[in-house]
């Protein structure tokens, strides 16, 4: 175990990525994630990697595409408007079956919006912001420690499935300082020799692409992708349940919203209100079974998001009419306030 350090979420993500063996980072400046490229510029070349400040987010994700073709662990990061520009590249990464890690330290939108924290990129992240039938594992860390841990894990999951993985945070996670201890990377080895490009002595040539004009081929690829997505859905779902056992109202929230809800749960418990929290750690795959299981007993689900309400649709699908769903959301960079949530919680209990 390493020693305790105090770091911003952005820096912790950057350091964790380097420790996980990431050697190729490509980024473009945008607040509130600028600490990531700055950290990479300062540390990555000294530790044997490559940093490029690309000409755009589009270029950066395509540099990731190229580096991933060689088997290198590659990463890019940005914030909402820049992540929109990466959608084409993400679709191509999935289509070409390339591993990569993408970080979105989300901010208020739509448009240029602001630089305040937001969860309004949920649909883009989990429903496929790019074209075609695709999914990727989306991690939503709540703390700086978890951001570092999930970043390390993201590289393994990307390599295991040959698929991009997204880390979805927000301005609060990126900017806040917390103590953390870097875990040892898993050390898992992935044999990429059957598909990577370069140094081809003694093997047949390899092709990385996502195009076929032959009849039925792309459909077949999609069926194979589906098998992979099903496998990911079965194996990679992560969720935390907090005091849900006897809860009359269960919050469903992720990331910063979950942090706020956890605090509300603690206060409410002190007042004798039985409430709990289901916190999706992956929002794709979504922990529908956990929610569905609780919906058999608990009558009220209370979704809190920093958006007009996006994850609530997946909660609805999981609850399937077995409980009442309530919502508290703040769009455009607004952060839910604990007293407002508490007030609404009490109204729900009186209803």
């Amino acid at each position: 175990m390493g020693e305790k350090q105090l770091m911003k979420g952005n820096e912790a993500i950057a350091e964790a990525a380097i420790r996980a063996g990431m050697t190729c980072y490509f980024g473009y400046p945008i607040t509130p994630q600028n600490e990531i490229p700055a950290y990479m510029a300062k540390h990555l070349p000294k530790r044997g990697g490559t940093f490029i400040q690309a000409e755009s987010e589009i270029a950066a994700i395509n540099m990731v595409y190229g580096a991933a073709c060689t088997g290198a662990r590659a990463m890019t990061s940005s914030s909402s408007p820049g992540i929109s520009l990466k959608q084409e590249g993400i679709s191509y990464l999935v289509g070409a079956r390339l591993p990569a890690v993408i970080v979105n330290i989300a901010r208020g939108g739509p448009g240029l919006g602001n630089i305040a924290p937001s969860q309004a990129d949920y649909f883009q992240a989990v429903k496929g912001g790019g074209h075609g039938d695709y999914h990727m594992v989306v991690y939503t860390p709540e703390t700086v420690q978890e951001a570092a841990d999930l970043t390390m894990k993201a590289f393994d999951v990307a390599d295991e499935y040959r698929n991009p993985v997204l880390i979805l945070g927000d301005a609060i996670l990126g900017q806040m300082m917390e103590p953390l201890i870097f875990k040892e990377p898993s050390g898992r080895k992935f044999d990429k020799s059957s598909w990577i490009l370069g140094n081809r002595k003694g093997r047949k040539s390899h092709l990385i692409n996502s195009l076929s004009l032959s009849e039925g081929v792309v459909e077949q690829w999609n069926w194979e992708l589906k098998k992979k997505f099903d496998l990911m859905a079965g194996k990679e779902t992560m969720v935390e349940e907090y005091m849900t056992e006897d809860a009359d109202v269960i919050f469903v929230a992720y990331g910063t919203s979950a942090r706020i809800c956890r605090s509300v749960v603690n206060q409410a418990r002190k007042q004798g209100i039985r409430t709990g929290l289901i916190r999706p750690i992956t929002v794709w795959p979504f922990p529908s079974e956990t929610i569905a299981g609780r919906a058999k007993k608990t009558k009220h689900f209370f979704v809190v998001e920093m958006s007009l309400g996006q994850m609530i649709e997946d909660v609805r699908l999981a609850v399937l009419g077995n409980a009442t769903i309530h919502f508290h959301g703040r769009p455009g960079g607004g952060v839910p306030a604990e007293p407002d949530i508490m007030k609404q919680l009490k109204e729900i209990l009186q209803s």
Partner: protein
Amino acid sequence: MKKVYERNNIAFDMPSPYCPGCGHGVIHRLVIDAIKENRQEDNTIFMAPVGCSILSYTYLDLDVCQPAHGRTPAAATGIKRALPDSLVILYQGDGDLAAIGTAEIIHAANRGENITAIFVNNAIYGMTGGQMAPTTLVGQTATTCPYGRNPKDGQGYPIRVCELLQSLGGVTYAARTSVHSAPNVLKTKKAIQTGIENQMAKKGFSIIEILSACPVNWGMTPEKANQFVANEMIDYYPLGDFKKDGKIIQRSDH
């Protein structure tokens, strides 16, 4: 009798995947000849663009990467940075390089990425059926400029890529050649060899712009199409070196 010219077996045993008389076929051959002469078959990564030459992967027995339309230079950058000793051939059409991918090519060139760019200027969008390209000549017709390209009508001027890129510090070599006749094919071969030598000597970014016929979408026979290159295109796109060993070559063409 002695065999003095034989097919290059970096290409699979099949005709090129292109239309009769298409310049891409000739240029592919020149590229694989240079790869072979430099014994780089096992070390080459060929970047196939979105455009007719996306089909190069069906023809070339090389490691091939095929990125999104225009993003080819960025993907090539990622590959070269991860594998600095590989030989990266960046192959692009005029739509890929000079329209949708303008930012990517300028910045890859400006960073001096140590790669060799082969820019196939056929003044048209071949793959999508003959639309106006950024390099379509003034007056030349295409499905999206059916009355002839007219800059006065808001359709812009044909972009001279070598002239545009030669000023960038990262560019070590920029040359324009053509494949419309045998002597010009031989000059193109030399230019490609220079571009590959530069990369092997880690000199930075080289670009060889090659004027090339698209008989099908120009609506001409292959012979007429090559005459069009000789009589019309070279007039606007003068041939020769624009930069060598990092030095801009002063010219009086235009």
